[in-house]
């Protein structure tokens, strides 16, 4: 209960500070929209020259992209920890975190959240809606719950990978560029995994499971029965990887010695 009230208090605090600079917030949302538009333009232009991409049609690819945007937006909102190493370890901020009465990871997440990114959920829903209408997809009443479950799983998949990587900072405070690299690898999840070769497909499924952010869960709503096993694994993989990453984080925190001074 304490965690929930902390969560909402941080959100309230966050909104107060951001509302002071409304213009900045709008600019940020607009530029996020622009970045999302680039990928859409890419898909649209490419399908001007081909009918299918690895057996998937234009609107299916657009649907997958729309789905991808939803967990990705939630991930960017709550797991904005790509600069954890510099911000918390090198600057010694972690010492302060450890004196707080809530779990250290939760505290970091609260401090670093970026609620503007939530706008991506709306963009994703609009893109999916457009594609679904063109594909004449039909939904059952329970699909909404499955959708929420899958989005939740996808968010945890992304989140856990970045939490695990952030934990590396506890062992070595050298500057690494693994985080930006991971953002680029994450983009592979936007397209059907069957266009990649087997090694990459295996990595995207079991090691850096970005495929569970986009194509696998989306295939359920596209009624691709061959992919259902993977689709329903989404929440399992998400939870499993997240538990694992929290364990790594906890071990790391125990090892944390401070940056000196």
């Amino acid at each position, binding site marked *: 209960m304490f965690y929930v009230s902390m969560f909402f208090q941080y959100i309230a605090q966050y909104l107060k500070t951001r509302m002071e600079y409304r213009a900045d917030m709008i600019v940020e949302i607009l530029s996020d929209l622009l970045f999302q538009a680039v990928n859409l333009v890419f898909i649209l232009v490419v399908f001007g*020259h081909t009918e299918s991409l690895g057996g998937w049609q234009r609107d299916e690819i657009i649907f997958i992209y729309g789905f991808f945007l939803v967990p990705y937006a939630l991930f960017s909102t709550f797991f904005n920890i790509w600069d954890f190493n510099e911000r918390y370890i090198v600057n010694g901020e972690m010492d302060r975190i450890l004196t707080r009465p809530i779990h250290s990871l939760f505290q970091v997440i609260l401090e670093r959240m970026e609620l503007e990114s939530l706008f991506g959920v709306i963009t994703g829903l609009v893109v999916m809606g457009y594609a679904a209408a063109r594909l004449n997809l039909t939904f059952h009443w329970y699909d909404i719950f499955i959708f929420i479950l899958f989005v939740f799983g996808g968010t945890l998949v992304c989140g856990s990978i970045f939490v695990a990587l952030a934990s590396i900072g506890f062992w070595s405070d050298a500057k690494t560029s693994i985080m930006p690299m991971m953002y680029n690898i994450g983009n592979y999840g936007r397209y059907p995994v069957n266009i990649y070769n087997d090694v990459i497909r295996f990595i995207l499924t079991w090691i850096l499971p970005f495929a569970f952010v986009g194509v696998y869960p989306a295939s359920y709503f596209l009624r691709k029965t061959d992919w259902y096993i993977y689709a329903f694994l989404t929440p399992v993989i998400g939870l499993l990887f997240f538990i694992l990453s929290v364990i790594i984080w906890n071990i790391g925190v125990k090892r944390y010695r401070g940056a000196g001074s």
Partner: protein
Amino acid sequence: MSKYLEMIRIRFLMMLAYRTNYYSGILIYSINIGAYYFLWTAIYGGKESIQGLDAAQMVTYVAISWMARAFYFNNIDREIAMEIREGKVAVELIRPYNYLGMKTMQAFGEGVFRLFFFSMPGMVIVSFIFPLELPLDWQAWCFFAISIFFSFVINTEINLLTGISAFFLFNNDGLMRAKRVIIDLFSGLLLPISFYPVWAQEIMEYLPFQAISYIPSMIFTKGFQEAEITDAILFQLFWSILLIIPICAMWAVAKRKMIIQGG
């Protein structure tokens, strides 16, 4: 002149000191090239060629356009905006050099560094992983060299323009991000211009963006033939000269209305 050459040298040496930061950059670019490699092979499927480019040319196009990006890409718009916001530009303006010229030279030093320590080894690595078709005749390489030089000039000019805009807008972050998106899309980095619908191509002919990535990459992949090459390079030359005018105009106005924020 010698002071500007010195700036190129200093920036080059500065980058050299931090060269380890760049190895991961090559990996990131390779990851991106990989993503587009698989995408394009799937797009080509059984097709022989799309818009005059066959699958092998397309892969080469993707690889060379990313590796060329390492050369022409720079952050001077961000640097200029930062110096304006922090008021450092006031000190820069009383120094005995042209501020914009100095920034351009620094960017060039950075570009040359990345050409040798990023693009070239990167291209070698990438050509081991992916089936590339490198041009065999020396003319193509020469034209390519001229062309990426102009890419650098035009991209830098656009960066100067967005950077100077910080004089007029207190916060030009949005403009800088929009510029990045526009350049990614309309320079031909992600998609060759010839893939766009005809109406979009016609609009883009009146804009400088395709001179940044599309032209050098097309020369490299032999997508352009004889006359097209010279036309394309003239197009680049035309824009590199034309863009000087708005830069000078904006700079003249900016210097007059400069307000140092704080400091």
